[in-house]
């Protein structure tokens, strides 16, 4: 009897252990590369041994244990797998744009591991991406940190199970356009954005109290207490207040960034990362002191009014002021050459090699709360590695191989033409997409826009 129950229990918990048990881990010895550790300097003619998905040894004259493949990287460069802190690749739904607060929505529910964008990111050396809810809502859904283990159809296989929880916030033009101007619901102005956030947190505090009161009352004998409604939305906000979730806030204008920093201080929130934050440089000292830094574009500007007063020197200024700075893509196109986007900080601000590389490795890892696991080439970290044929920060570099957990998922020499995992059985002529829309922060909100306004917009 006991045995059967145990089996049933295991069966019920099966999906979770299935994933972690089945997530493939590999071993490989990469020899004689110029190893850019990012945190411990650059090592010439050095070997890196990965075993069962973990970097076991970084040194010289290493030999491969039996059954472990050797990759000769003479003349090549090895760097940690690139981490994109802002992406929407691999998600079937990006925006649940119907309410200004949708903290109960989970991107983990709608991950699509067969999206070709994942493979294309791998071919650009990106091993981890932060798949985020879109920027339509002031408080959006919870994000998913993905490891690009290409080839599986099971979404659980690519979700990084040991990554901390994160949630999307958005300030400025996007939520005020979607809710205020598009739907007649607060917020319509930046004033409203602050009100929505403060109201949300205060309601969450009341919710926590109601449940705490009920829990203690219902423990008493002969009590007459009935429970309050269950509300995952408010519970999630309460979790943010309890420090269990890292806020990643899409923001642009200096004043709104400053606003959220003050709100965070009022509610004792320290786990806050600003995303895009084109005017972050104007409040760089504040971002450095009170937050977990900023994740910015290399050079996007002027496509909306709130980014008109931007500078490509943003990352350099933030970095110089001591803020943890990373470079992100927010685009299925840019994610394929994040190494090049990071290199732009050398043109705009004269960053050193290690500073630029940190912006796509250890810094985003810190902002996602996974810096103990990935983000640099150090013994004990996960085997996420990329080999380039020349220095990654050179504009002419070409990524050669990408490893996730020690398994090679991209090899330019063995790269087959058609990487699609699924093909429609009724496909007559394949769709040709011209000038794809690459910024997906506003996906799933098209119906809320003024139809007439979009009519003659040919682009």
């Amino acid at each position, binding site marked *: 009897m006991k045995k059967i129950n145990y089996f049933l229990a295991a*069966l*019920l918990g*099966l*999906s979770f252990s299935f994933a972690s048990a089945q997530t493939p881990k590999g071993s490989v010895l990469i020899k004689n590369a110029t190893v850019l550790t990012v945190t411990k300097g650059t090592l010439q003619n050095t070997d890196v041994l990965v075993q069962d998905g973990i970097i076991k040894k970084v040194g010289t004259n290493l030999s491969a244990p039996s059954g472990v493949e050797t990759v000769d990287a003479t003349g090549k460069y090895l760097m940690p797998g690139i981490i994109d802190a802002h992406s929407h690749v691999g998600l*079937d*739904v990006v*925006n*649940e*744009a*119907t*309410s*200004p607060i*949708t903290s*109960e*929505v*989970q*991107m983990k*529910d*709608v991950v*699509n591991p067969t999206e070709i964008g994942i493979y294309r990111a791998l071919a650009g050396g990106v091993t981890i991406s932060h798949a985020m809810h879109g920027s339509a809502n002031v408080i959006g*859904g919870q994000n998913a940190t993905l490891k690009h283990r290409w080839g599986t*159809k*099971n*979404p659980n296989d690519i979700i990084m199970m040991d990554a901390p929880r994160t949630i999307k916030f958005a300030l400025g033009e996007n939520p005020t356009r979607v*809710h205020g101007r598009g*739907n007649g*619901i607060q917020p319509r102005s930046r004033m409203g954005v602050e009100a929505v956030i403060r109201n949300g947190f205060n309601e969450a505090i009341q919710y926590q109290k109601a449940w705490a009161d009920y829990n203690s009352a219902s423990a008493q004998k*002969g009590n*007459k207490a*009935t*429970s309050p*409604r*269950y*509300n*995952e939305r408010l519970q999630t906000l309460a979790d943010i207040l309890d420090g269990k979730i890292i806020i990643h806030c899409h923001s642009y204008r200096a004043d709104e960034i400053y606003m959220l920093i003050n709100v965070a201080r009022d509610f004792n929130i320290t786990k806050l990362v600003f995303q895009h934050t084109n005017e972050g440089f104007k409040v760089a000292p504040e971002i450095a002191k009170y937050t977990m830094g900023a994740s910015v574009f290399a050079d996007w500007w002027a496509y909306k009014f709130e980014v008109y007063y931007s500078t490509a020197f943003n990352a350099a200024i933030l970095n110089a002021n001591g803020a943890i700075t990373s470079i992100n893509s927010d685009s299925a196109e840019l994610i394929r050459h994040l190494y090049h986007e990071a290199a732009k900080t050398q043109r705009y601000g004269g960053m050193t090699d290690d500073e630029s590389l940190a912006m796509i490795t250890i810094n985003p890892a810190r902002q996602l709360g996974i810096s103990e696991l990935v983000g640099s080439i150090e013994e004990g970290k996960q085997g996420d590695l990329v080999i380039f044929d020349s220095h990654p920060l050179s504009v002419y570099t070409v990524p050669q191989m990408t490893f996730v957990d020690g398994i090679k998922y991209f090899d330019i020499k063995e790269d087959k*033409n*058609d990487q*699609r995992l*699924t*093909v*429609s*059985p*009724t*496909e*007559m002529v*394949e769709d040709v997409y011209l000038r794809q829309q690459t910024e997906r922060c506003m996906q*799933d909100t*098209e*119906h*809320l826009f*003024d*139809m*007439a*306004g979009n*009519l*003659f917009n040919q682009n």
Partner: protein
Amino acid sequence: MKRTLFRASVICMILGSWMISSSTFAQSDPTGKKRITSSFAITNATVFTEPGKAGVKSTILIQDGVIAGVGNNLSIPKEAKLIAGDSLFVYAGFIDGASNTGITKPKDPERSENFVSSDPPDEIAGITPSRSAVDQFAMDSKVEELRKGGFTVLQIVPEGGMIAGKAAIMVLGNETSSNLIMENTALAVSFKGSRGMYPGTAAGVMAKFRDVYKNTELTKINSDKYASVPGVKRPDIDDTFMGMKDVIAGSTPVMFSASSELEIRRALKLQKELGFNLILTDLENYEGVIPEMKAAGVKVLIKAEVPDDKAIKAQKEDVTEDVKAQYIRVKESFDKAIAQAGKLEAAGIQFSFTTVGVKAGDIGKSLKTMIDGGLSETGALAALTTNPAAMMGMSRELGTIEKGKMANLVLTTDTLFKEDTQIKHVIADGYLFDYETKAKKKADEAGKATTGTKVAGNWDYTTESPAGSSGGVITIKKDGNEYSGTITYDDPAGSGKATAPIKDIKLDGSSLSFAFDVNAQGMSIVVEISGTIDGNSMDGTMSIGQFGSFPFEATLIPSITAKL
């Protein structure tokens, strides 16, 4: 315990309705439609009593909707109408595991003045677990089409939003009976969001479903406390709670619509989290999740449809390497798709069919294709009979030809899955339905006239776009040889409906097309609608300038005064 009581009440209902019907039908019937006897004997037919058993020449005796005997040497009562079965093959009547044939979508409820789209009332947001499919069902020509295809029992599912309501089991018997076998047999759930309000996407739907489920559980606890402890605050009981109550108790399963692998996984995820009984339906692409479905022990309904082979047929010979590589991948995908049912069978999963979204006339062909792809004939027959009966918990009454079971039979001209087999008779609930079987007359097909395609009248339409569904009414009048009319649509400028005249109306055989202008903020766009009319329904597409094309469906609103 609950089940036996239920059963008892159901049987009472059936008996009751029989008694009512026999007293309603007084002796005289001036229409001449009344049958002369409720007893039948099908003599000397090749009878396949259950899937896997070889056909045996036997006689079947039916009395009052029940199979009174199967075999040889039966004593046939004098009242029995004889049907010579010498050239006929008999199978148990088919059971449709989930059907929306005969279902009319209910009207969207009116939105109140203070409607807030971020927090809409459940009823408007598509959360209506108390609704029953029975209220939306009517035995119409489409249902008759299904019966013509051999289906005798349907589990009808209601139309609606993410939680549409409760399914029910109907027998396709005589139109004078309610034909209801059992109500509240499953809760129809899907990932459909609602237009312009929360939840709008699959992610929102999943979060909302968890919310509804967990709060139902809490309300139940609070209700129980209210019932047993004095002085407790009265819990707020609403329609949603009433509808969800038996689902959280486990007595009503959740029938989740999930066509793709990812959707199936999402449904399984919710099931694992919340613990409800799960039936998966509308499966189209599922090969990769067969192990997961097996492990979870869920019941499965696959679409009685295979992918269109137009693309495969259109593949040309003389093409570049690139295109050839594409062709190979598409063909592979196609071959895999038709082999899926066979794989389900091989994995030991006892699946059934659903006809939602499937044209009744294509079902036979689709099944034959699945058999070509690896499904055994026994497996196909089981999916049509014993499997759905078991899924519904009605193996005692349905699924095989045995004494004591309901008189649901299909009589064909040859063995079931042969190329030119036709269905000659269907017996449902003990009522006999005859069908014309014709020899392949190609000339007949070609000469089919297109007169009488009913166009004029009021059409209730819906259209699906990424923004959600939208609808209105099209009124068409015939003026000699010309048509004119108007259309109502959701006013983009605000709430409510706007009306516009329709223009460029063209009728070509059964293909209808027309256009109308939508004006918004001083600009005007042309919307084009085109579709095929089949009886009372129209199927086609709505194209809006450069925005794209969206599926369009319309049903003719029955009206006494509509004229051709």
